[in-house]
């Protein structure tokens, strides 16, 4: 009876080790800094979740947002600090075309308390983007500490803006026969 009880201790210890491994996976998955980006261009909201940042290949490889050329988009960047210490860093968001910064969208020192959450918002109006970048895909770069995110940005023409700009008339004068 005593030996059997002794044997069970080893089995219980083995089970505790297994539960410990499971607990490590759950705890490790929770701990960290998680960020979500939501882009609202007035027509729809596109959201990029932490899981999508982590495994872009499962979600098409890259993330893109579009703004109609007469509109604007609101970017809401939410950071969740699932750590025991405060998250202090600088958050910068820029609009980049051909590796050149065209616009600084956001730039601020941020501080998020332990297990806290904070949202940052900025607006990009298509009118602020120089004309030569219309219909050219640019990149919104978001950098904070070790976190670097990129979202493609396209400023596109809508049916309304296309009809508003008249089609130029070309007059061809044929040479006399």
């Amino acid at each position, binding site marked *: 009876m005593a030996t059997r009880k002794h044997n069970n201790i080893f089995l219980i210890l083995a089970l505790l080790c297994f539960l410990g491994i499971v607990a*490590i996976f759950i705890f490790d998955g929770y701990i960290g800094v998680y960020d979500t980006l939501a882009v609202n261009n007035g027509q729809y909201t596109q959201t990029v979740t932490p899981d999508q940042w982590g495994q872009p290949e499962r979600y098409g490889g890259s993330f893109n947002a579009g703004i109609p050329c007469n509109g604007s988009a609101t970017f809401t960047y939410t950071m969740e600090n699932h750590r025991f210490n405060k998250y202090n860093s600088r958050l910068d968001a820029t609009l980049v075309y051909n590796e050149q910064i065209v616009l600084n969208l956001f730039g601020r020192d941020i501080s998020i308390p332990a297990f806290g959450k904070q949202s940052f918002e900025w607006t990009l109006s298509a009118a602020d983007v120089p004309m030569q970048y219309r219909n050219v895909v640019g990149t919104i770069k978001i950098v904070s500490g070790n976190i670097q995110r990129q979202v493609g940005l396209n400023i596109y023409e809508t049916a309304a803006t296309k009809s508003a700009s008249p089609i130029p008339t070309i007059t061809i004068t044929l040479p006399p026969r």
Partner: protein
Amino acid sequence: MKLEYILYGFGILFCVAGVGYLAAEYVKYLSDLGKLGALVLTIGLFAFLGKYFERLGW
């Protein structure tokens, strides 16, 4: 009887392969400290299981 053992063998093999595949997938997302902790606990798990079966007379 022999067929049963073959089926058991296949069952165990698939279980080990499945658990191994899942572990390999999930370990990729663990931090270094988490990996170390999981390794230590895995060693402990097999050591205690070994001791348990040894005491049983296997």
